[in-house]
C-alpha cells in the first residue's frame, strides 16, 4: 500500500476524527448508559458514527487499504488515551475497518451500494463482538453460561425461551439497518463535504 503525502494526511485526519468521537462521545455514553448497555447501545452508536467517518474518508482517499489505515490510526489513538488500554474497543475498531474494506472490495467501484454494504458489515460486527471476545477470553464454557441464563431467566419470567431468540434476531436486524444507514449517509456526506471544500 503506497499513499501520497496528501492521502496520508487525510488518513490521519479521519483517524483523528474517529478517535475524537470514540474518546469524547464514548466517555459521555459510557457515563450515561449502564455497563450492561455497552454492547447493545453504546457500541452500536459508536460503530455507526465510526463507519460514517471512515467511509467519508474513503471518498477523499479512494484507494484500497485507506479505511483499514484509518482504523489503525483510530485504534492507536484510543490505546494512548487517558482511559487506558482496553482490548475490546481496539479489536472492534480494527475489525470494523477490515470489514468495511471487505465491503468496499466486494463492491469494487466506489458507489452507494458499496458504502451501504461496508456499513452493514462494520456495524453487524458489533453484534458478534461480545460473543467472540467472550469466547476468546473465557472459552466455549461461557456459551453454556449464557444459554443457561436465558433458559432460567425465561422460566423465572414465565415466558417461552423462543422469545429470547426473537429478541436476538431483532437486535441483529437493528444493526443491519443502522449499518446500512451509516453507509448511505456517508455517501451523501462525502459529496456535501467535497462541495463545501470546492466553494
Amino acid at each position, binding site marked *: 500500500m503506497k499513499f501520497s503525502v496528501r492521502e496520508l494526511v487525510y488518513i490521519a485526519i479521519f483517524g483523528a476524527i474517529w478517535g475524537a468521537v470514540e474518546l469524547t462521545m464514548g466517555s459521555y455514553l459510557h457515563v450515561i448508559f449502564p455497563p450492561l448497555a455497552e454492547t447493545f447501545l453504546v457500541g452500536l452508536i459508536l460503530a455507526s458514527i465510526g463507519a460514517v467517518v471512515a467511509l467519508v474518508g474513503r471518498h477523499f482517499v479512494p484507494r484500497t487499504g485507506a479505511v483499514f489505515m484509518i482504523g489503525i490510526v483510530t485504534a492507536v489513538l484510543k490505546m494512548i488515551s487517558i482511559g487506558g488500554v482496553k482490548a475490546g474497543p481496539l479489536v472492534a475498531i480494527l475489525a470494523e475497518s477490515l470489514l468495511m474494506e471487505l465491503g468496499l472490495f466486494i463492491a469494487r467501484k466506489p458507489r452507494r451500494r458499496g458504502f451501504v454494504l461496508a456499513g452493514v458489515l462494520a456495524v453487524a460486527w458489533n453484534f458478534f463482538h461480545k460473543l467472540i471476545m467472550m469466547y476468546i477470553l473465557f472459552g466455549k464454557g461461557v456459551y*453454556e453460561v449464557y444459554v443457561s441464563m436465558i433458559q432460567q431467566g425465561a422460566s423465572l419470567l414465565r415466558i417461552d425461551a423462543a422469545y429470547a431468540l426473537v429478541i436476538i434476531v431483532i437486535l441483529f436486524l437493528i444493526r443491519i439497518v443502522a449499518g446500512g444507514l451509516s453507509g448511505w449517509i456517508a455517501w451523501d*456526506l462525502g459529496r456535501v463535504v467535497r462541495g463545501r471544500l470546492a466553494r
Partner: protein
Amino acid sequence: MAAWRDSHPLSGTFRGAFSAYGYLFLFLGTAVAAIVAREAEVIFVLLAAIILAGLSRSQALRLLARWQLWAFVLPTLALSPLLIGERDVHLWGLWFSQEGFWAGLWMVGRALCIALAAAVFTRSISVSQMAQLFEGLRLKGLGFALGVATNVLPTIQETMETSYQAMRLRGGFRTRRLRTLKLLLVALIAGSLRRGDDIVSAAESRAFDPDRSPGPLISPTRADLALAAGCGILAAALLLL
C-alpha cells in the same frame, strides 16, 4: 507526548533484551497457549504470564488491582457453579455444581492470561515503535499518519466541542437531530480537511517522502526469537499432551 518517547535502552536487563517483536510474540504466544490449555493447564500459563509480566513490565500487574477486571471476573466465578453442569454439592442452603465451579475457574484463569499479556504488550512499546512495527509490515507512511493524527487530535476535539455547543445553544438538537448531527460532521470534517491542506504544504515544502522510513526498521533480536520458539514449544506441548 510521553507515549511517543521510546523507553531507554536497558541493555543487560531482561526488558532490554526484547524488541517490539518480542513483546508481540509474548502477547500472541500467551494468548495461544491460554486458548489451547485444557483445564488445570491454564494455571501454568497464568503463572508463566505473571512471571514474564513481572520481569518485563511490572506496571502491567497493576491490571490485577482494577475493579473493572474483577467486575468481569467475579460474576463468572459466582455464576458458573449455578449454571454449568449438574448441581451435586449442597452448601449454605443452595445446590452448586462442582463441574461448574472448576469450569468457571479455568475460564477466569484463561481470561487473566490474555488480559495480562495484552497489558504487557501495550505498556511496553511506544507509539513510534508501533509505527515502525507497522512500517515493517509494509504499511508505509503509517508512522507519519500517526504523528499527524496525535497532533491534530486536540484541535479536532476542541472543534467538536465548540461546534456541538454552538449547535445546541441554537436549538439544533431539539428537532431533526439526525440532520443536525450530519451538519456537525460536515462542519467538523470540512474544517479539519482545510487544516490538513496546510500540513500537506508544510510536509511537501520539506520534501517529505513517505517511502523513506522515519528511522531504522525494527528487527527481531535473538531474545525475541528465543521467546517465540519458547512460546511455540509451550503451545505445541499443551496441544499434544
